[in-house]
């Protein structure tokens, strides 16, 4: 038995030595954690983070198409939620985030503190979060678009999940939301029901819209679903600078956020054409929506959608290419 234990210990030691030999002695750099799939076949690779919503997929699809077809890169994409994506960006597992909705804590930690992430400039799209009801419902009951009247409609919006109150449908847990605090602080007779993912939320909204049933949902612009299900925003108390500083006490609307790009610092400096291109990448809400709709509604593959957009908008993307 002792001999076996000795053998086991020996093999463990051998494994440790082999591990060290394999990875090079000394310190491992946790900020250089590139994806194992990167740079295969002697090609230069860029890894982009795709968030789960389709607008973000549209950004990445077009950037990827141009990087691959115009600049000769290979592009890998990884789907990561918003907050973990910052961490992955800092570790170099991804090179860029193309659409960020505002994460002040992470900006402070990674940009100002560690310096592992660099700002990449505006995406050109302005994002806005809000509460929405379907337009057909708002036309029937015009006063529903004022938050003070929401309690009147709580009964219409009740579901099995909302336990006797009206249902406010929320989406993915990864999204920025103050809805629970808003419901409490505005004294609304509503229950926040989390769909758990955007896919589930969209599926639910489409089903309800098909039957012209009323619903109240957390939603955001730009979003392709507006083209399929017209929705009207419910006016919440106006947003003022700093009114959302304390998460528990928020009682105002969401701000309008110019969406930002962020690059890994090492990539921003040494990424060559790809980094220069991604810094210049800047389009409009309408353009993003066109591509997003092709992906989500016509079910084109992101690549196909991007190639169609690229064919028709050469004037726009020519300016992004490094000269």
């Amino acid at each position, binding site marked *: 038995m002792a001999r076996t234990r000795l053998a086991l210990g020996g093999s463990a030691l051998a494994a440790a030595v082999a591990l060290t030999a394999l990875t090079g002695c000394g*310190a491992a750099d946790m900020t250089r954690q590139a994806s194992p799939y990167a740079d295969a076949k002697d090609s230069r690779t860029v890894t982009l983070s795709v968030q789960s919503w389709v607008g973000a997929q549209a950004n990445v699809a077009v950037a990827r198409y141009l990087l691959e077809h115009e600049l000769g890169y290979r592009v890998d994409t990884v789907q990561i939620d918003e907050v973990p994506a910052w961490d992955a960006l800092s570790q170099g597992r991804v090179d860029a985030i193309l659409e960020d909705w505002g994460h002040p804590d992470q900006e402070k930690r990674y940009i100002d503190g560690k310096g592992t992430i660099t700002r990449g400039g505006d995406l050109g799209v302005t994002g806005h979060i809000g509460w929405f009801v379907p337009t057909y419902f708002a036309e029937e009951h015009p006063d529903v678009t004022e938050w003070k009247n929401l309690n009147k409609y709580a009964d219409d919006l009740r579901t099995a999940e909302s336990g006797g109150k009206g249902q406010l449908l929320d989406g993915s847990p990864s999204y920025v939301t103050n809805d629970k605090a808003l419901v409490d602080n505005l004294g609304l007779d509503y229950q926040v029901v989390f769909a758990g993912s955007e896919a589930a939320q969209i599926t639910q909204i489409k089903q309800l819209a098909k039957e012209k049933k009323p619903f109240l949902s957390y939603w955001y612009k730009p979003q392709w679903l507006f083209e399929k299900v017209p929705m009207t925003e419910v006016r919440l108390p106006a947003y003022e600078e700093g009114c959302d500083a304390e998460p528990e006490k928020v009682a105002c609307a969401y701000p309008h956020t110019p969406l930002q790009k962020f690059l890994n610092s090492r990539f921003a400096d040494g990424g060559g054409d790809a980094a220069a291109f991604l810094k210049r990448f800047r389009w409009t809400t309408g353009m993003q929506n066109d591509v997003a709709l092709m992906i*989500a509604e016509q079910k084109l593959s992101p690549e196909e959608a991007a190639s169609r957009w690229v064919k028709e908008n050469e004037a726009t993307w020519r300016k992004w290419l490094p000269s």
Partner: protein
Amino acid sequence: MTATVTPASARPSSPAAARGVLRVFAGHRGRLLCAGTAVALVLGAVFLGGGGWPASLVADPSGPLDRAGDWIVDNRDGHPLFLYFLGHISNAVVVSVRAVYLALLALGWAGVTAAAGLVAWRVAGVRLALTSVAAIAVCGLLGMWVPTLQTLALMVVAVAASVLLGGLLGLTAGLSDRMGRILRPVLDTMQVLPAFAYLLPVVLVFGIGVPAAVLATVVYAAPPMARLTALGLRGADAGVMEAVASLGATGRQRLLTARLPLARKELLLGLSQSIMMALGMAVIASVIGAGGLGDRVYQALASVDVGAALAAGVPIVLLAVVLDRVTGAAGERLGAAPARRAGTGWAVALVVTAVVAGAGRLSGRLSWPDGWTVDIAEPVNGAVDWMTAHLYSGVPLVGGTADWAARFTTWVLNPLRDGLQWLPWWAVLLTVGALALLIGTWRTATTAVLAMAAIGALGVWDPALDTLSQVLAAVAVTLVLGFALGVAAARSTRLGRVLRPVLDVFQTLPQFVYLIPVVALFGVGRAPAVAAAVVYALPAVVRITAQGVLAVDPAALESSRSLGATGRQQLFQVQLPLARPALLLAVNQGVVLVLAVVVIGGLVGGGALGYDAVFGLAQGDLATGLVAGAAIVCLGLALDRVTQPTERRDLARKGA
């Protein structure tokens, strides 16, 4: 197992008087338990009062957890622990995955296909070789060539690490009694935990990406290997061992020449189980950046594209089926004497692979040809749209699926949840303990009660009971459907033959793929989570039930028939009672599988613990996520122990 507490096995060592008392106790065990529970209920009502878990008994760990999370993120780039230890592990994983991936790419599609076919031919025969080639070709046809290779590379590394780690653990557990005693319960427990609970801790340490994904997969896939290795080593024929020892073999010789070869069946079974677990995890790990096929499934589901999700899901199923069959066939061939020209066969395989790969290289077609793909996404989406359009609501007479879901939520889930949450906390613990005692032993009952208490202490009592109510509802539905189908399949050979491939496929489909169609059919909420869980757990329950009923001694059936029993009487009075152990095992498996999916149901509005775990992952919020994960672990433990029949332990202990 120290069995002195259980009356049945205490008998041999006890003195006569105690034996009598114990026998009386054993005979009236059920009644005694009921009486004891009733007394405790009354006492509890008087002294403890009602209500949920008392706030004074909660130890909220979120403060320290938050600080730990911040510390790790802040120190990951500079602290020696990361620089000199964890960083190397991470790099080693990346280097090995990359090496395998590059090797696969270098082989080219022709080379990989040829290699797969030839390896299958050598270990499993011509038929499986053709199946493997077809499966690999389908992966390419579906336009999933590169993701398939990525998943394959990750799998190869993860499975190799699992087998190594599991094998070593199994070796120590198999050779040392003390290690065996320590490891057994740990490994048992790890096997029943939902995969989702493993993700957060590794993400915390390694960050999102391939290393975290590989390590989560290893942690998930190593236990079966360890268990089966230990089982195989302990099961070595005592006579053979004695003979080897009398020939003067040293310890090492005994191990290498007798014990390990004798255990090779179990070792192969362990390998095959590890592979299946790793594949299942490969999809779930896409949430933490595994890439490959799982990531394609995840991305497709984000745009509600069931067809594309299926296109990525099919290769996973095919890989699973092929690997399962090939390792299975290899296990069956083991007993046979090795063919004389085995070496030549392998050489032929090697040469042919090299030639094909070289030819592919020279012709410059390493990647799967773009033109050779088939788009299945559109027709599938068409079918799904049609289903939801026609079944969702307003179907005459029966109502639409949405109406069912609403009714199920209002009349089953809500009362169940409210009832559980209304129950005084000590009554819940008492019920859990009593139930576990009825089915299992003192030991399982204690574990179950402690696990439930831990949930309360973590401060997530209410959400845990919410999850529990979903699990109970889903298990009830699964068992009704599963027993019915299983019995039917056992009694009709034709139905059994039709069902088998369907069950195979459903069991290997990644859990994620179920989520979106159920939302389309049942809306958002707890009902779709329950529905997905039922679909996922049903195959295992059906299979175990059918096997149990089929395994009933034919002589017993024959004699009952000769006594003039009708088919119905045979079923209810002979087959089902005799199949009781199998049915109990089916319940246990059903509970474990249902919990795994109900937890993922957090992604479709299932709420409760699953939502907290998703939230923790999505927001990088360690406190919420880890607490939810720990609570899921405890709930899984409690559910498993409550439903764990003593027979299963005996089976597992065979040859110990």
